[in-house]
């Protein structure tokens, strides 16, 4: 009994230490963002939150078009998310609940695309988009990512368990066609799955760096991550401002995560179990 208790305490100590390590960089970001750069460059360094946070945030707004970048990132993230939710759930609904000639072959093809690293097609994809004349426009950020194999695979697993066949039969008896069945039977039942896929997609697009770095060539139309890196590059010595920018870019995301976080984590884990 006693050893059991000691083990529990040791377990919590280990876990709390891990939590501190996970949280510390955010605290440190805040410390640097709220002190002046000259305060940061002293020895010993300042370890506590200072009073210059808003001043530093102001410098960020002076140096990059922060809200413009945020708007572009938001439009791209929301655009991709909405399209992915629609296309992926529609395809997943068909794959999970209907038999049609070539279904297994098509699904196998879809799974095979998992193996391909996105960097393989980086160069030719850029060339293709340049041919389309999409380089520098939001289309380049949104359209190529509008449907993805992971989402369809994941939603299909979800739909298989969540949608009772009887509901679909009933809808058919009522004379509903395929798309009406999707709208009235599929979508409502798939809602929790869509919530996960939505947050997952949103976070990924929001955080993406390499692709927007390549295709968003217009300096007035950078995504947040790329703009942030520019801030870091040009004004590399003004750490306080750079950190204020980093902090401002992270806050909306953490907000989204904290709202939907608990279910999100459970679904990520469940998704991994299904592979």
């Amino acid at each position, binding site marked *: 009994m006693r050893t059991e208790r000691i083990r529990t305490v040791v377990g919590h100590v280990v876990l709390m230490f891990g939590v501190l390590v996970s949280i510390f960089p955010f605290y440190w970001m805040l410390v640097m963002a709220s002190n002046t750069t000259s305060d940061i460059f002293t020895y010993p360094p300042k370890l506590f939150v200072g009073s210059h946070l808003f001043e530093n945030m102001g410098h960020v707004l002076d140096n990059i078009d922060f809200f413009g970048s945020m708007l572009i990132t938001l439009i791209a993230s929301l655009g991709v998310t909405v399209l992915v939710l629609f296309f992926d759930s529609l395809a997943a609904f068909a794959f999970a609940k209907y038999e049609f000639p070539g279904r297994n072959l098509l699904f196998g093809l879809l799974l095979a695309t998992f193996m391909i690293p996105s960097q393989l097609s980086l160069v030719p994809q850029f*060339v293709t988009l340049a041919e389309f004349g999409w380089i520098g426009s939001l289309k380049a950020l949104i359209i190529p990512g509008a449907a993805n194999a992971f989402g369809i695979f994941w939603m299909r697993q979800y739909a298989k368990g969540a949608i009772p066949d009887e509901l679909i039969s009933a809808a058919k008896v009522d004379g509903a066609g*395929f798309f009406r069945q999707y709208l009235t039977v599929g979508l409502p039942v798939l809602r929790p799955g869509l919530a996960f896929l939505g947050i997952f997609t949103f976070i990924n697009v929001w955080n993406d760096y390499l692709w927007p770095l390549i295709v968003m060539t217009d300096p007035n139309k950078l995504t947040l991550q790329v703009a942030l890196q520019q801030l870091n590059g040009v004004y590399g010595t003004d750490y306080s401002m750079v950190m204020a920018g980093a902090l401002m870019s992270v806050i909306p995301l953490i907000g989204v995560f904290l709202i939907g976080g608990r279910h999100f984590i459970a679904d990520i884990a469940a998704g991994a179990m299904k592979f």
Partner: protein
Amino acid sequence: MAVSNAISTSAVSTKETAPDRPPGKYRRALPQYAAVSPFFILFAVFGAFPILFSIWLSFHSWDGIGQMKWVGLEQYSYLLTDPSFWKSITNTLIIWVISTVPMLLLALVIANALHNATRFRSFYRIAYFVPNITSVVAVTMVFGSVFSNNFGLLNAFLQSVGLQKIEWLSAPWGIKVAIASIVLWRWTGYNAIIFLAGLQAISSDVYEAAKMDGASPRQTFWRITVPLLRPVILFTAVTSTIGGLQIFTESQVLFGSSGAIGGPGDGGLTIVSYLYDSAFGKHQFGYGAAIGWALFILIVLFSIINWRLIGGNDDERITKRAARRIDAKVARDRAQDKELTDAH
């Protein structure tokens, strides 16, 4: 079982089908084809075509604007002798090993502790997951300042305990440690949550049985937990390998604006950062495509190695082996019985 379309069309939709010509099975499935087509169309345009094109491209020398010039296998033969390319591979592999191995071990420890903890579990899960959803760019900036040579927190700490400061961001190995620790910080919690889900899927009956047989915690861990977690460990190993081979943002944010993309001595030059620099920095599109193919081959190779090492999805093989053993034992027992009866 999916709902059959055949029943519904014959039973319900007499209105829209012409009585003399029943729709073919492909025609009946048109809505389903329409439903799955967006992915395949997008993949054809932005996935399959670029991949085929990249094979073609890798046989050419092209700056993206002028005329493409056929060079055959020259890009590849140059690739094999290019010291920067080999450096990028060694760097990537070193960063991958020094981040992934501690990451998966730590994740196992944390998952175990989380599994046993009855209180604060959802708090822990959220806290451990926050690093993963944070943007790499912002995090790399923070780590960059912590590892900074002159005013970094880490060196301030080393000095305060009377040690020499270390040139983290200029020594080749220091750069790798810095990049690996960003990866470690971002992904340990994620993998721990995945392991936790795997642990929770193991039936408690198995543990009770082990307890009854007097198994020690260590035996239980190695003989029960690890083997039953094998598919989950394989998943994390394969995803970490694929992710590890594609490291880019960390080194780009740390050094991208300093002129040399790999940092001092190219200590942080990864495969993808070399690809990026070749194609979009130096405008050698054909060479960039060839590096992409080398990366693809590496990923496939390492996935197969992982698969082999951890045993893969071989439930069937194990079952067959067990069945063979039982058969052999039954045969042996029979033979023994026979011997005994013969002896009598």
